[in-house]
């Protein structure tokens, strides 16, 4: 099996201009993004249909129990008040779930190596995972919205605000998911992240109530919860009413996203828990 007729000429492999010029490996980013999209789409019952069903069950139960008894904003029935909060909560939870579950799964199974061996830079890696998380969050939100407006009349006062909060909210939670996915070494740690951080923060953010209905101490505590600003600002887009100025909320959410992005990029650049 020896090779006496070996050419000993350098092998000619096609160049990749974007990589050789030091530019963005846009095809690599697109491929990783597409793979991440397909990953959740292949299990759409679990990743899209299930959260839509959960949100609709919340809507059904809470509107049945409290629908006639509570009015949070003047002239807005409780059921209608509830929908934007439920949409945003699902959007945020699923954006987080997409990047975090993909990373922990590929780390545990070892298939993360297929990405780590490539010339994708830490920024390209971040962009692809972030974009997929945003799309998953928005897809779940859009499905809940479409099903909800089939039954309930939902106004839209500031569509730009809805889109802005949906974008920055999914981006923030997608980034947080990347951090969790990098940090966690096993599914147990990821479940702790989800159940002890994401769930309490989203449930205590004003999805089911306005923080003005809380005692003043808990109102103050709510201001330390980033989910509160995302829910409140997103709801403002529908009703034109909010607990605090939507511009302040947007600034806080956008700033949190940029700070968390810098932290994530720093982790990725250093190879923390990915490259020894």
């Amino acid at each position, binding site marked *: 099996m020896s090779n006496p007729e070996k*050419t000993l000429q*350098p092998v000619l492999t096609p160049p*990749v201009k974007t990589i*050789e010029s030091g530019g963005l490996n846009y*095809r690599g980013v697109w491929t990783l993004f597409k*793979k991440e999209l*397909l990953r959740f789409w292949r299990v759409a019952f679990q990743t899209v249909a299930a959260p839509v069903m959960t949100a609709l069950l919340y809507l059904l139960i809470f509107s049945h129990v409290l629908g006639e008894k509570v009015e949070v904003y003047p002239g807005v029935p409780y059921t209608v008040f509830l929908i934007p909060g439920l949409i945003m909560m699902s959007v945020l939870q699923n954006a987080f779930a997409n990047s975090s579950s993909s990373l922990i799964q590929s780390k545990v*199974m070892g298939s993360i190596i*297929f990405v780590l061996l490539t010339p994708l*830079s830490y920024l390209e890696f971040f962009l692809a995972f972030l974009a997929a998380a945003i799309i998953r969050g928005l897809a779940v939100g859009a499905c809940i919205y479409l099903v909800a407006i089939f039954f309930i009349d939902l106004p839209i006062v500031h569509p730009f605000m809805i889109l802005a909060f949906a974008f920055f909210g999914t981006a923030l939670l997608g980034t947080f998911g990347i951090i969790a996915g990098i940090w966690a070494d096993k599914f147990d740690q990821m479940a702790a992240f989800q159940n002890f951080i994401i769930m309490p923060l989203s449930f205590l953010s004003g999805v089911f109530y306005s923080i003005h209905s809380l005692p003043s101490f808990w109102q103050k505590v709510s201001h330390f919860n980033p989910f509160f600003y995302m829910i409140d600002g997103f709801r403002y887009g529908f009703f034109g009413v909010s607990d605090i100025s939507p511009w302040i909320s947007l600034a806080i959410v956008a700033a949190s996203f940029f700070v968390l992005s810098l932290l994530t990029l720093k982790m990725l650049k250093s190879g923390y828990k990915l490259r020894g």
Partner: protein
Amino acid sequence: MIPAIKIEQVHKHFGALHALKGVDLTVEQGEFFALLGPNGAGKSTLINLLAGLIRPTSGHLSIMGHDVVSDYRLARLALGVVPQELVFDPFFNVREMLRFQAGYFGRGKENDAWVDEVIEALGLTDKAHTNMRRLSGGMKRRALIAQALAHKPPVIVLDEPTAGVDVELRQIMWEFVNRLNREGHTIILTTHYLEEAEVLCSRIAMMKGGEIVALDSTANLLNRLPSKNLRLKLGAATLPASLAGRLRTQDSDFYTLALDDVGQIEQVLAELRTAGIAIEDMQLLEADLEDVFIDLVGRK
């Protein structure tokens, strides 16, 4: 010509463990090179450093002239690694995985013909649309090899590619890898099957305890040891003390003695006659890479 791989004074520490102790190694383009050593010798650490999966504590590694740390994008573009573990992504089929892998390296539809060629050469055509988790172990191994080749890298590292695979796959794989090597691809192989390295590789490095203890052409390594081994079955008798210096290995009642040349057979037979020991069976064997390995590294 720029070396395919250049490793200069590379040290790697994992906490208190000094896994690599100043390794220097150059592999020229077009070589079929073997990296041998017992478990824990540092082979996988060296490969992981080349692949950028871990970073050196000190020293430099380059692939086709590109530093694996400072110029990692071009270094990785030039490298394809077949990992030792059977890892796979359970969401996709074989062809999808190969296209994704090529895509990460910036290759698009123009590369599809090469992907199809790799699929066919590795006998994966029937399984191209089968989900990775439904493949047998051997087929998963083929898919792993195909993934490493999907972007057509000039330098290919095969980390224990034949561990636990059947004869058919070995033949298919070596046929294809040999073809790639003939076409100019540089191949670096780690294996526990020393006969594979002996037959395939033109040069060999042997590692032990994080250091390279031998680096030479396969022919020169084989010439390092006495050229012959005399294997004797002596029944219940034990080897006379006068022949103990020649003893290479003992396996039950078989003794393997090292000879510098065939002329020394008569001397061994005379010693046995003097000791009154009858020979039940006798074989004259060529020294092989395993003998060199045992001599240098101590055990297989």
